């Protein structure tokens, strides 16, 4: 995979106006395997990417694609049975396999995480205020008055009104959107360099989603933090991310800037995801929604070669390259890589496939039409002519 850190500064993505070229997070060939009764689950299989300062990388994929596992691996929060290999560097320092003490120092202070279901992710028997405060006191000694003031400030930043009351409230007394914002407040309490947001909007209504995303954006502007935004919702990604990494079956499918991914997808999976979005600007009313046929594969027995090829509309025939070789990411533009054997000529392949399908359809229609005509003729021959 193209090593983005080796490129000259001006070719790198957004937000590097202060000349810092060291990425905040760099992941190199991450593998996370879980031994289970049924076999070895390869949750993440060869993932590499970087996140630069003040940049938002969207990590997109279906459930089971390995996105959450990746984020937990960064923080060292995976269960003990996980077998992790590869290299994960934070601000240049390798953090994979570090001691618990060192990791604890980073967690909540330099790298913070916002989880998906805020109702489950907040302790139900402690007040929200005390939980936010804990994020601070774990890493520093602060006296009570200052602590309270700081928590009020955080509540204000994320847009939670009436902090005096809200400090004493319990998670179940908050609304869904507020809870998520409280989680964000907890995460940014120490102004981390990297904020990992794992499906921060999935459990929320669309209108609330927008609010929460706006909060994240505001914080990023303020603190110039980097954001790793994990989601399966392309709409969320479109609004907030600078670059996007699409994952499938624990492997990288495609990575590029938002524009490149949305307007020039070079991987059939990405194309499938985009095609299945209901779009009001495309005038496709009356047509069925597009679905990628098939189901995500078992991570124990990933298909040989390209993981996506069984579901791919333009994959090679049996025994072809898609079945034999696992595609490694190839460069389309300096920031845009795609792990598909046909990445360069994808558009043509799709066109050809469509043509073939149309031809087949025409052929079939002709055949049936002819058949019907023959049957009608035969039927007429048997009609009694009275």
């Amino acid at each position, binding site marked *: 995979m193209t090593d983005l850190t080796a490129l000259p500064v001006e070719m790198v993505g957004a937000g590097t106006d202060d000349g810092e070229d060291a990425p905040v997070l760099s992941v190199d060939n991450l593998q996370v395997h879980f031994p289970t009764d049924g076999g070895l689950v390869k949750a993440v299989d060869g993932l590499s990417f970087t996140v630069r300062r003040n940049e938002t990388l969207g990590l997109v994929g279906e459930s089971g694609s390995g996105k959450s596992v990746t984020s937990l691996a960064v*923080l060292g*929060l995976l269960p003990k049975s996980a077998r992790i290999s590869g290299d994960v560097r934070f601000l240049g320092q390798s953090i994979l396999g570090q001691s*618990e003490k060192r990791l*604890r*120092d*980073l*967690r*909540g*202070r330099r790298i*913070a*995480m916002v*989880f998906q*279901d805020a109702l*489950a*992710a*907040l*302790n*139900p*028997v*402690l007040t929200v205020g005390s939980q936010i405060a*804990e*994020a601070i006191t*774990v*890493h520093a000694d602060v006296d009570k008055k200052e602590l309270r003031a700081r928590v009020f400030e955080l509540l204000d930043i994320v847009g939670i009104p009436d902090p005096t009351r809200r400090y004493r409230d*319990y998670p*179940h*007394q908050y609304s869904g959107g507020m809870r998520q914002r409280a*989680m964000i407040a*907890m995460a940014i309490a120490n102004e981390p360099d990297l904020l990992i947001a794992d499906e921060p909007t999935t459990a929320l209504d669309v209108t609330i989603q927008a609010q929460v995303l706006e909060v994240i954006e505001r914080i990023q502007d303020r603190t110039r933090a980097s954001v790793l935004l994990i989601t399966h919702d392309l709409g969320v990604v479109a609004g907030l991310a600078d670059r996007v990494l699409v994952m499938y079956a624990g492997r990288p499918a495609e990575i590029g800037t938002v524009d490149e991914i949305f307007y020039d997808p070079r991987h059939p999976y990405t194309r499938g995801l985009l095609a299945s979005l209901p779009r009001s600007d495309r005038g496709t009313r009356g047509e069925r929604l597009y679905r990628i046929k098939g189901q995500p594969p078992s991570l124990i027995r990933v298909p040989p070669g390209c993981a996506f090829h069984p579901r791919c509309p333009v994959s090679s025939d049996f025994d072809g390259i898609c079945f034999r070789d696992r595609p490694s990411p190839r460069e389309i533009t300096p920031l845009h890589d795609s792990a598909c054997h046909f990445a360069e000529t994808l558009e043509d392949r799709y066109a050809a496939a469509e043509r073939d399908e149309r031809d087949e359809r025409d052929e079939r229609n002709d055949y049936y039409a002819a058949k019907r005509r023959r049957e009608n003729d035969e039927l007429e021959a048997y009609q009694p002519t009275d």
Partner: protein
Amino acid sequence: MLIYILRRVLYSIPLLLIATFGVFLMVSETFDASAYLAQNRSPETRAAFIEKNNLDEPVVNRYGDWLVDAVQGNFGETYRSSEPVMDEVRPAFWNTIQIVGWGILISAFVAVSIGVYSAVRQYSISDYLLTGLAFVGIALPPFWFGLIAYHFATELAGWVNGGEPVLYGLGLHSAGKDGLNLDYARHLVLPVMTLTVQIIASWSRFQRSSMLDVLSSDYIRTARAKGVSRPKVILKHGLRNGLIPLVTIIALDVGALFGGLVVTEVVFSIPGMGRLFVDALNNGEANIVLAWLLIAAFGIILFNLLADIAYSILDPRIRLS
């Protein structure tokens, strides 16, 4: 929260009334006539007995009279010696409270510790060992365990102390001694062990399961992601949530505790309510039995009430809805 407590108290009162009425009914059906009338068939003695104990009045009336007296502390007189029942009950009650009190405290503390430890060290050797012990503990009939323990203590005495018992198995104090001292402790060990072994086994299993549930929840992960240290995560975040279900279990098990203390007192000859109860049953002393069952019912309902309150304190979701 006060309203919540009030509501619970209000709910408990009819429960108590129904329970005591049921008890009264049961006792009057199986006691009065069987014990004394059957033996004294002559009409005069029967009539006299009925007269004295108002046995010819309908049950409800008798119940009412008895209840009114009972609330004032008058449980009537023993059939045998016509002495006030309260005189027998009071000292016995005090003895029993000691055993039960120690029992509950020790049980709760040990069970929670074992449960938490097992959960944190799931699948380790100690976990398997403790789980195995728990299964053994649950399967041990308490009365048999008590006898065996007593036997072993006596055997042990033979080897260790030259015939002098190390742990006593009779009563609560040696002759002439009193108060909170080593002698007292030596008397307490066996009875409390007998009372608590099954309870600790059962509660620790439950606590382990509850802690496992808690430790795999999302908010534990959040706490760790914040950088909270492991012991703090387990105790501050985990245990506070993990204790809540145990409170319910403790409330449910109180009834079993009463049974257990009867057995313990009988095995170790402790002059408490349990032994009093057994003797009263054997001698047909209805009033003592009634007194005891009333105290027991009251105690259980009170305990449930306390458990509810504790539950609402621990879980703000209950408190504030």
